[in-house]
Structures are given as C-alpha cells and as structure tokens.
C-alpha cells in the first residue's frame, strides 16, 4: 500500500464540496499515477471541473485531503498548486488578449523585477520547447490574433515553462477542430513519454480511448468507477457515466419533407472593413427535414446564423422566412423573427444565449418575456415563470432542478439544455441551432439529438450548424459544407462520409 502511494503523482481522499445547496463533489477519492495520462469522464455537472479547481487551489474543499507525490499538501491558492508543480489549462482560457505570446508566457513567472531578462529567457526556452514538443507559436504575435488552437498551445506552453510535472486539461478539445485535436493528443503523448503526469477531462470518448492509460468515471459528485483504458470501450464508459444503457445510433426514420419554411437566395455579408464574410449563399430548409452545415469553425457559419436569425442584416441577397421577405432594405430584428416562428439556439451560449447573472427561470423565458402566461399587462408573473422553468427542467433533464439558481452556476451542458428547452418548447416552425452539443455529455448528446429529430418529425424545419462531423452525419438529412463564406457542396446524408466531407471542409474538393 505504501508502495502504491509513493507512485501516485496525485491522490485525493474524500474530497467534499458544496456551493450553497448544491452538493457538487461528494467524498471523491482518486489516484493518478506518475507519468500516465488519466482521463476523467462524467455527465454535465458531475463535478469534474469543481474537483480539478480544488486540486488547483481555485476553490477550497469543505473536507478531504490532497496528496502530491505522497505528501499531504494544503492548496489555498493557485500559487500553492504551481509551487507543487501543477499546471492547469482551463475550460475557458486564462490569457490576456492584448498581450503578446511572450508576455502571457511570463506572467506570474517573470524572473525578476525587470522584464527584459525574463522575456529573453522565455524566448530561448520557447524555442527549445517548440523543438522538443512541436509546440510552435510566434512569440511576438498578439494572443487576440491567434486561432483558438494556437491559444491553447500558449496555455500548455505556459504550464511547461513553469516546469510543471502535472498537467490538468479541462475539456481542451471542446473548441478545437478535428485536426487541432489530433495535434493535441500527440502532444499529450509526448509529454507523458517525458514523464509529465496528465489529467484529461473530456466528453469525447474517442479521445479517452486514444490517449489515456486509465479512466475515472464521475457521477453526481462521486467517483463511481475506475478502468484501465485497455480493458474498456465506449459503450461501457457511457453506461458507467449515465448509469443506464446509451444508444449511439439514432435510428431515425427518413424525412418527410413539407414546404420550404426558410430560404436564402444569393445572401452576402460584408463587414465594415470590407471583408466578405458570406458570399452568395443560397439554401432552403423544408418543414420536416434537418439540414446540417458542416465546416471548420470560422468559415462563415457564425455569421450565417446571425443573418438568418435577424441579428445582423444581410448586405446583399434575400431571406424568406415563414413568408416574410428580408433583405438589406427590409431588415428584421430577432424579436420579429421569433414572432414569425423562427427560434435560434446560438453557438455562443454564454454571450448570446443567456445572461449569466440571471436566474435559471429568467433564462428560461428570455426573449418570450412579454408573452402570456409570463406577463400580464406589463407585469411579470414570477410564480408562473418559476413553474414554467421547473417544468422545462423536468422535461429536458436540466440539473440541478433549481429555477432560482443563477444561470452562471449551472455547468456548461446544463446551460445548453436550458437554452434548447426554451427554444424548442415553443414548437417553432424553423429551428436554427449552432453547435447543439458543444461541451455536452454523452447522455445529454443522445437526448438533445433525439429531441431535434422529434422536432423534425413534428414538422419543424431544422438547420444545424456543427463543427462535429459525426454530429452532422448522424443528424442531417441533407448536408451543406461551408468554406471561406461560401457553400462549397451539398450532399445527401446517405451518400456522405467523413473523409469526403473533411476534404470539402478543407476547401480541397467541391461536390
């Protein structure tokens, strides 16, 4: 037993943490072996991020013990964690956008009261790390100008520069393209081979199976299982996480298409600096079908959703939504679109989908607040809103079922479920959905996809934008591929495969 403890880079014993009435982590214990990659999986709100934040000193545990390299330690602040060789890449990056890469790298480890020395040293060190791990970034680039993948590389470099021996990554691939994810996994393997201990939180079982040595499963704040990766598979893990059988196939019936509900003709969007964001986009979405838009993020999908939902007016071309014509001369606002029956689940849920400081019940009616039964004669009906929210939470399995909790205190996946619930519960004629399952756990992914198909079968015209090819392939009846602001191809779902879509997404092939 003593032997085992000495081998553990991290050992947590009986960690407990509550936020008010929410019991986020319940007596969790786990061991992470030195020089290994350990995966942590679990549903949204299972307590994964909370547990890691406790290990990193961002939160104080109510009870429990932390041992690093076999010695009990006190983690009062990130400073302690850094001192014990722990580095963390957070779910939301901790970078200063206006700083250069080098400035970000040395923040907190400047190596002296003057910057010059530290900057020079970091530059040399960066060149070395770039060679050793293939982590190349331009040291003088401003972080704001980097792609998300590059920003994440900066976060990892930051940790390595401080000589961390333990690296924690919280959903690192949620924002990455498939190619970037593959690079990341490669880097993690390299790190492990050089003796770094890696803890990887992710919802993507493919990644778990590809790189980890051991998987820890959390459910409702507890550690419920531990498996050697070699001895498990996706099905097994999914069931452990959710506590029931999860079906990966969606067995959906063929679409029964009705009339066209949403059409775009020669749509274009040019921004203030003259950059063409959307270029001659034409598409149709009919009642009873799901149209999927595939593409590497940043190829105009975000803007397309903004234009279709009425957030931005197009600069050219026209939209016809449920009989209403929209063009540059006849713009529409999102509220009018909503009235027409066009619901929108935005990609960026924290900024466009909800107000973090609002209660869950307020989030659940955002955009519909002036309608019955939430509002009579300009007065909000609080109890009615609360009841409505509780009902939505029940139907869409939002956890915890607490209409009175601040929206920001829900885990990412549960925020997403709440927003989806809000938009889908109104039985819209057209449903626009951006990244429906970003950061969402397996059980919820299954649920959300089924709900989308149910909406389709009820006659809703659904447009799904996703960077996850697998998601597009399993949901869509028709697939459009975007590249550089244009639609570069259309494929029927039955005829598409990942390789072919991947090539089109890279702009290498038109269909």
């Amino acid at each position, binding site marked *: 037993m003593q032997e085992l403890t000495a081998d553990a880079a991290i050992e947590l014993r009986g960690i407990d943490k509550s*936020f008010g009435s929410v019991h986020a982590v319940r007596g969790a214990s786990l061991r992470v072996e030195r020089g290994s990659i350990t995966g942590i999986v679990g549903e949204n709100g299972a307590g994964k991020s909370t547990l890691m934040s406790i290990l*990193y000193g*961002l*939160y*104080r545990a109510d009870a429990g013990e932390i041992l690093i390299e076999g010695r009990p330690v006190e983690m009062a*602040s*990130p*400073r*302690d*964690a*850094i*001192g014990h060789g722990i580095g*963390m890449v*957070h779910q939301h990056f*901790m*970078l*200063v*956008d*206006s*700083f250069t890469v080098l*400035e970000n790298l*040395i*923040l*907190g*480890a*400047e190596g*002296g*009261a*003057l*910057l*010059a020395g*530290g900057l020079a040293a970091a530059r040399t060190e960066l060149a070395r790390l770039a060679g050793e791990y293939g982590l190349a970034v331009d040291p003088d680039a401003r972080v704001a100008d980097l792609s998300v993948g590059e920003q994440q590389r900066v976060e990892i470099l930051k940790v390595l520069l401080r000589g961390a021996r333990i690296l924690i990554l919280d959903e690192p691939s949620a924002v990455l393209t498939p190619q970037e994810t593959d690079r990341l996994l490669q880097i993690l393997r390299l790190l492990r081979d050089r003796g770094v201990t890696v803890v990887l939180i992710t919802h993507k079982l493919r990644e778990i199976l590809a790189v980890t040595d051991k998987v820890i499963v959390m459910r409702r704040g507890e550690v419920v299982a531990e498996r050697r990766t070699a001895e498990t598979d996706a099905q097994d893990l999914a069931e452990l996480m959710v506590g029931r059988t999860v079906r990966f196939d969606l067995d959906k019936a063929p679409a029964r298409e009705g009339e066209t509900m949403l059409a775009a003709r020669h749509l274009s969007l040019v921004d203030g600096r003259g950059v063409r964001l959307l270029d001659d986009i034409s598409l149709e979405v009919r009642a009873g079908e799901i149209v999927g838009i595939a593409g590497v993020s940043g190829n105009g999908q975000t803007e397309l959703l903004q234009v279709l939902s009425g957030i931005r007016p197009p600069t050219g071309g026209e939209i016809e939504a449920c009989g209403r014509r929209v063009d540059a001369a006849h713009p529409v606002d999102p509220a009018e679109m909503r009235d027409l029956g066009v619901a929108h689940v935005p990609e960026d849920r924290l900024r466009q989908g909800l107000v973090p400081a609002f209660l869950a019940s307020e989030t659940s009616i955002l955009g519909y607040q002036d309608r019955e039964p939430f509002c009579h004669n300009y007065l909000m009906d609080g109890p009615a809103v609360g009841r409505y929210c509780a009902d939505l939470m029940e139907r869409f399995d939002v956890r915890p079922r607490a209409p009175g909790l601040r929206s920001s205190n829900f885990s990412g996946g549960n925020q997403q479920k709440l927003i989806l619930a809000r938009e889908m519960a109104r039985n819209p004629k057209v449903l626009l959905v951006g990244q429906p399952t970003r950061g969402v756990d397996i059980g919820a992914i299954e649920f959300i996809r089924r709900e989308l198909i149910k909406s389709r079968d009820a006659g809703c015209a659904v447009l799904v934008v996703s960077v996850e090819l697998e998601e597009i392939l399993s949901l869509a009846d028709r697939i459009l591929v975007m590249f550089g602001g244009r639609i570069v191809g259309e494929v029927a779902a039955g005829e598409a495969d990942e390789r072919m879509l991947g090539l089109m997404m890279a702009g290498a092939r038109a269909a």
Partner: protein
Amino acid sequence: MEETLTLVIATLAATLRVATPLVLCAMGGLFSEKSGIIDVGLEGKMLMAAFFAAATASLTGSAWAGVGAAILAAEVLALLHGFACITHRGNQVVSGIAINILAMGLTVVLGAAWFGRGGQTPPLAGTERLNPIFFPVAGDNILVYVALLSVPFAWWVIDRTRFGLRLRAVGEVPLAVDAAGISVSWLRYRAVLLCGLFAGLAGAYLSIAQNAGFSRDMTAGQGFIALAAIIFGRWRPVPAFGACLAFGLLDATAIRLQGVKLPGIGEVPVQLIQALPYLLTLFLLAGFIGRTVAPKAAGVPYEKEH
C-alpha cells in the same frame, strides 16, 4: 520680433505651469486605471492634498512638511477608495464621487475651523512655498520637474517592469492573474496607492507652488481634465502627457485671450476655450476611440466564487 518671441516663451512657460498638476494627476490615474480601478476621485484627492499641504506649510513653516502632508492626505483617500472598491467590491464611480464630495466639504469645514478665513489658508511666503529653481519668472519649482520625470517613469514602470506587466494584466483579465498565483487585491492596492502619491503631489503643487495658499474648490475640475487626458492618450503615458500639454496650452491661451477683441469675430468667448478639453473628450469618446483601448476589466470588481 523680439516681442513675439517673448510672448511665445511666456505662453510656453504658462502652459507648463498649468499642465504640471494635470500631468501628475494623469500619471497617477493611469496606474489606477491600468489596474482596472477607475478613479473619478482624482479631483477630491488633489483637493484634499492641496488643503493639507497649505495648512501644514503654514503651521510648520516648511514647504516639505506640506508636501508630506499632501501625500499622506491623498493616500488616506486612496486607501478609502481601495477599501470600498477592492476589498468590498463596491462601485468605483460611486466611491470616486463620494470621495470628491467628502473632500469638497471637509476642506471647507476644516479650513473654517482652523483658520477662520472662509475656507482659505493664510497666505504663504518664503520657505513655506516651493520656489522656482532656475528661472523665477517661469515658476519652475521642483514639482514641475517631477511632473516631467513622472512621464518616462510611468512609461518605464508600465512597459518594462514585472509590476507593470502584472498591472496591465490585472486590468484586462484579473482571473488570469489569479490563476497565475498572483494576488489581484494586493496588485490593485499598490496601483491605487501609486495613484494617491501622484495626486498628492499634484495637490501640493496647486496650493504651495503655483499659488500661495489654499482657496476653496481650487482644483476647479482639473482632476477631471486629467482623466480626460488619460482617455485622450488612450491609456498610454506619453500621449496622455501630450494631451495634458495641449489642455494646458488651451488654458494658457484662454487667459491671454481674455478680453481681447479679434478682428471680425469680436470678443473671444473664453468659456468656449475652457470647455474645449471636455468637448474634445466627448467627441473622441463618441467616435474616435473604440472602447477596446480601455483596460477591459476597468470598473469591474473582481469576484471569485468559492
């Protein structure tokens, strides 16, 4: 010819004299704003400092004691601002305004109680004042040079030192600073204290260098002009210095133009010239400076959930 030259030199000297408190205040405010703490209370700090400088100088007979008292007075208000905004995460603008009101009232009440001259301190002379060093007519007292040096100093600290890097970071993304293991509060307190130091010097300049005593409300909005200069200079020391000089020049010409009739225009409305800094600031804020250049976390208290 000779006459024009004299006029130009005199105007430049006047510009520098008027700009000195603005520069000191702007550099102080810059430190605070860079750390994410908006300081509307510059005006109040300067006023309080001006009062204590004159009061102390007149009681002790030493200008240097006056400078010390000025710094102390401004620091007390700076700490108050820090306590409200950093420790208790209060609203920074409200706290700043409260400090201004406090200073306005307190200086008058204390002045009346101690000296009984309707809020004024007794006139100062000789060693009770900071006197010109090289050119008696130009009024180049030590604080003018301190102000000139404060600009490269601020630039160097903000741009080239560890403290400056952290200061800039904490004004943009305090969470990143916290995650890097650095105390957000202590960093911001240091910034606020630096701000108090400079505001104190600016106040001392007003009452014991530029003028020979304190009179009520003698700051007359200069703290706000300094804030405008910071915005004008896009939160960078050298451009902010330039803005202070420009405002100083406007003021100096306004005084010269007082009562002058220009052909075709008639009498120049001095009020218009004096309002120019504010108008320009409004103008710039409305269109020319994107919000993006202000420290992103300015005005937002740092709350860590735990």
